[in-house]
């Protein structure tokens, strides 16, 4: 094995180990959403072809920059044309309290994916806003919920 191969393989193994460790913590509920997003480089990309039937609740995926946790195991291939953003019954979007890691605003569908106090998002005008209270409303709908 060449040195190049050794180094490349070591990084692959590192990525795999980090991903497995992060997933374990997510499934066990040992890590906050903020911490998960802080390690999003170790989150596997969501795949439309993947069978998540045997995946544990809490399994994290990343799709188009947003991080999600599995709510309901399922086979993604059975939902063609969808993705975690459009299947809120199956995936819960994660939010962060770190303004430097804030993700674009995602309209909550219910209290299960609402923005909790302290959580941040990037609003449509590009500014980072922090929830002053648990809210499902956008800054346009209820400015008092955001700063």
């Amino acid at each position: 094995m060449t040195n190049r191969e050794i180094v490349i393989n070591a990084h692959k193994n590192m990525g795999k180990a980090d991903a497995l460790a992060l997933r374990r913590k997510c499934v066990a509920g040992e890590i906050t959403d903020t911490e998960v997003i802080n390690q999003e480089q170790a989150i596997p990309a969501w795949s439309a072809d993947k069978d998540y039937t045997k995946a544990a609740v809490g399994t994290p995926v990343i799709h188009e920059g947003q991080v999600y946790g599995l709510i309901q195991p399922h086979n993604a291939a059975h939902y063609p044309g969808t993705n975690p953003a459009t299947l809120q019954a199956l995936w819960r979007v994660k939010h962060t309290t770190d303004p430097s890691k804030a993700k674009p605003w995602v309209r909550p569908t219910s209290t299960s994916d609402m923005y909790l106090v302290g959580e941040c998002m990037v609003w449509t005008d590009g500014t980072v806003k922090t929830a002053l209270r648990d809210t499902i409303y956008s800054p346009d709908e209820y400015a008092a919920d955001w700063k």
Partner: protein
Amino acid sequence: MRIIEINALENGAHRNQDHSLSYIPDGWAMIPEGMEIPETFPFVDITADGGVVTSMVAGTVPDVPKPHSEPEEETETPVTWDELATAYQEGVNSID
């Protein structure tokens, strides 16, 4: 005085040295003071008589053998940051 061995070595060079004794060892001859020394010295052709060099002309300097060179090691292309990041991501995405 400087003395020179009359018979050359295998490579054509003559052994030579400064000599302070009054006698000349067998097989050696004295180089007279003022004798013109060729640039190729000690690769020279000499004649000697009675322990004294009578003529000295330039000899053939052998070619210097090329040093044995090891075959050049194939250098690997350095790994780039992008490749490392891609490898890491492949590992991340490889989990079941």
